[in-house]
């Protein structure tokens, strides 16, 4: 399954924990910094919502790019 399909599936079943992982993965594999910041934002918001401790690291990555 492609990452895109996995993301769509996770959205369809409102699987927020999966969305954190998949959007983080999407940020990690893209070479485009602009796109990476978009994905990191998505991952960060779902992590924040669930009180997932990875929110801190995601915040720091966005912060280092001046995005929060």
């Amino acid at each position, binding site marked *: 399954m492609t990452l895109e399909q996995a993301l769509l599936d996770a959205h369809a079943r409102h699987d927020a924990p999966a969305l954190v992982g998949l959007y983080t993965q999407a940020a990690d594999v893209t070479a485009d910094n602009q796109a990476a910041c978009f994905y990191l934002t998505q991952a960060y918001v779902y992590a*924040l919502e669930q009180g997932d401790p990875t929110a801190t690291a995601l915040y720091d990555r966005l912060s280092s790019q001046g995005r929060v």
Partner: protein
Amino acid sequence: MAKDAVSDMLGAVQQPIEHARGLANAHYTDPAHFAEEKNAVLFSSWAGLAVASDVPHVGDAKPLTFLGIPLLLIRDRTGQVRVFQNICRHRGMILVSEPKNIQGAIRCPYHSWCYGTDGALVSTPHVGGPGHNTHEAIDKSTLGLSEVRSHVWFDTVFINIDGTARPFEDVHANLIARWSIFDQPLHHGGADSRFVLDVQTNWKLAVENYCESYHLPWVHPGLNSYSRLEDHYNITEQGCYSGQGTLVYRQLTGEEGQVFPDFEGLSDHWISGGEYVAIYPNVLLGVQRDHAFVIVLEPVSLDQTCEHVHLYYAAPAVDDSLRARNAAQWRDVFEEDIFVVEGMYKGRSAPAFDGGRFSPVMDGPTHCFHDWVAGRIAAHRAR
């Protein structure tokens, strides 16, 4: 002419009980009066919204509506119960649409702005464009959720929508002192100790019926066999609350003689009796040696009231079958009142009804409530 006539009628309500009339029909049946009453009576006082036991755990959030206003009842990270308007500060979307536990943040389902359980706006994703999560025009520190003034007492969450009421402890100092002995943990009896009665009536009639004992021998003959009319006394505290007390409260006893544990440190007065008051505007309370109850009257509309009943005990766990029996017994009693509050509501459409009269001996608590409502409306009109 119409306005004068209306003011005169308020004046008639505020007469000494021997001469007073009750509130006129329009206060029960006219939408314009209901709209006026919202501001004059329900938004400007400490109205009951819910019970704190509705959100027992940190992060528990429950959407509620009070007179059409979408509200969010939540227990924040520090354990404090708060009430917010249940809308996002971005485009006004409803934030939480069903009861849930907020693990981290409240995420708006529209564009995912995120709020802490304390109402602070913590994230505004993509607000400065994709992947840019800030913008100088959007100052998060000024865009937290709109909090509604609230106060928890007797496990009841009271709200003052317009923010103008004096502090709850001032307004209700008298009842807080009167019942100070019950200022100890009240343990909600759980799922079988909460029920809801939907009644086709105006909320005020539920208050009026609750606070007098005059009807006991006729409407609750079963109750009256052990809670006799002659053992009751009136409670009237002008401008705050009114109701009835009984000198003789008989404990519910199980087949093996088991009873509920008593609240701690009760005086003789509380070992033998009980008190039942309506705390204005819309909360009905009862205390006895071994259990208490809270009824929040939700004024759904002019002619619809939802009665949210909750029973409390002195210990976190009490005898299961006895607790179920107690809930069933109270449900029977409260259901016995439904035909009365619905019947009085229908009666308010009879043009010849002039507000009615009060027994100077038996109806003091009811008149006390009418007098308070009339006073709030008169003060509102004078403003």
